């Protein structure tokens, strides 16, 4: 009567096109890693295909006019579209970071999250599994040593981090370097801060930060969430009555933000 198109179908097509384009863009540009864990990639690719199938199945319906359709339902679906367009993704800011709780015995098996160095990494993680049985858990990371400094890459960061907390004694005196973000904690002294990373388990809603206490005179030049390459020697200190690892003799180099801001947990 008033319109000779099926507005329901038209609206659904528009919503589906927007969602598919956004997902495709996120998948192709790698921005998807800002939102969800990389293990969702396959699922999202399949979802895009299904959404396209939905669109195709809707096209013939457009001409079958339906009178008096209720379009209010679709307004809400444009909300994500609006946010995706107006506020493009960046890394975290303003989230809290924590020292790991040393009373918890945590060992995490991180597996590769980028496909390029998958083979390399799987060898690494096998090495690590063998080594975790031995008494000194710091030995697993000695292979990354360059010029007296053990360089901890993102792929092994979570393993290393929790190992340091669980078997702190094994790591004392060793010098490590890793990429980190700065985080201030209220009850720290003036030259202390946390150098750590944000971990993602499932999606951006469960991002949690974990860091190691650092002491440095350059503290005052650092601002929160800033990216630094931190190098330091592991010692222990008391914090709230508990023994925690601390980086001493710290050298700080300002650094660029990496492509993926998060460390991705993989536990299966």
């Amino acid at each position: 009567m008033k319109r000779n198109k099926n507005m329901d179908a038209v609206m659904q097509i528009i919503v589906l096109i927007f969602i598919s384009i956004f997902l495709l863009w996120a998948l192709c540009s790698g921005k998807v890693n800002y939102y969800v864990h990389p293990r969702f990639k396959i699922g999202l690719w399949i979802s895009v295909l299904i959404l396209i199938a939905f669109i195709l199945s809707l096209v013939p319906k457009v001409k079958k006019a339906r009178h008096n359709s209720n379009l209010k339902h679709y307004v809400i679906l444009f909300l994500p579209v609006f946010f995706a367009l107006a506020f493009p993704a960046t890394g975290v800011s303003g989230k809290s970071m924590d020292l790991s709780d040393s009373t918890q015995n945590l060992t995490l098996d991180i597996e590769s999250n980028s496909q390029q160095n998958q083979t390399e990494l799987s060898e690494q993680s096998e090495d690590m599994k063998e080594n975790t049985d031995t008494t000194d858990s710091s030995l697993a990371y000695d292979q990354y040593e360059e010029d007296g400094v053990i360089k901890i890459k993102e792929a092994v960061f979570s393993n290393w981090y929790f190992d340091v907390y669980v078997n702190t004694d094994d790591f004392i005196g060793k010098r490590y370097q890793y990429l980190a973000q700065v985080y201030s904690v209220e009850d720290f002294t003036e030259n202390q801060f946390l150098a750590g990373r944000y971990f993602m388990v499932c999606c951006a809603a469960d991002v949690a930060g974990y860091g190691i206490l650092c002491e440095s005179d350059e503290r005052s030049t650092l601002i929160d969430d800033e990216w630094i390459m931190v190098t330091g020697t592991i010692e222990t200190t008391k914090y709230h009555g508990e023994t925690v690892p601390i980086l001493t003799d710290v050298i700080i180099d300002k650094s660029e933000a990496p492509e993926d801001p998060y460390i991705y947990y993989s536990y299966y």
Partner: protein
Amino acid sequence: MTGKVQPKIVNSDAVIINRYAELTNGERKKIEGDVRDINPKTKVIFTDNAKNDKLLNLFGIENKKETLINGIKLNLKVFLGFLLCIGLVVIFLVPSAYTVVQSFSVVFLGILMQAIPFLLIGSFLSVVIQLYVPSGWILSRFSKGGFLSFLAAAFAGLFLPMCDCGTVPVVAGLLRKNTPLPQVITFWLASSAVNPLVIVSMLYAFPDQPMLALVRFISGVLIAVFVGLLLQAFKIKTQYILKSTNRYVKIGSDIGEQSIEGVKGNCKAVLHGARKEFFRVMEYITIGAFISALLQAILPQAAQSFLNKTIIVQFIIMILAAMLMSTCSTSNAFIGRSFSKQFSTIPILSFVILGPMLDLQNLIMLSGTLKKWFLLLMTGMVIITSLIMLGILSIFI
């Protein structure tokens, strides 16, 4: 009656009911409600006189009072739009406001993105159940066994390797198939709290306490079965708690227009149904994700002030956190672990187990199918059951 006229009502501007004098007020209300459920835009007019004012209105002859109301409504919309614009200008001009909204947006879209694959799986599964599994079969499975049927429902839920948001469409599908409510709720609670992945994640999150994985598994099943039995005892029937929209917008009748013959017809029918189901849940999950992202932005600061309180306070905070934070069942073990400094084991367990069962986002999604009072009742039952269970447990841990 409604089943047959439903497609016609959907396409109509108004339903005119004559010879209505014999109808009681309640009956009139019910008719109005039913029509509104089928299509909110369709008006219901009780009249024996075709020249009735409201009727004339329908055909473009306006009545002054309504023009005035519409005018006020329009002004209100303009005003709200204006406020929104100012808000947006502030957000884009003030850098700190922009970053806050930006991180909100990442969380909001993150929740939606990880849910989409599961929603699609759920939608297809739901349609397949509705189209191909005969109601009689499900009914006979569930109505015979009594207690055993609850265990069966719980285990069906346990081994469904899906995130909780993907299960919502399946639940809707089962209910529309007239599956007995108590068993469906048992299935829902069990599948949202525990699945194979969850056990693995618990083992990784609490490697020194593998008992906790077992405790989560067992208490998940027990809570699910117990709440199901309670519902059985209350004799609440599916049709009372199903939102009436869902009584008429059965997928079966939507697909009725299409032939479900041959491979092509079948594929078309499934695709069509899954799309409908997907849009139905998408609306609710968008609202749910929006609210939980908003709360995530506000809550952490507020939660800090409640630290180091007694176990009951901790328990309440953890349950609130579980409801509002809407983390997936597979990831919340790690979130729970991060609370271990401030909270003791039992409240953390309640966070981990009840999180997906009482997740606000899931409840909002379910509210598309189930009536709100029932969801409140279910939430209450789950909380009380778990309080008792974890209370007993705390004697041993």
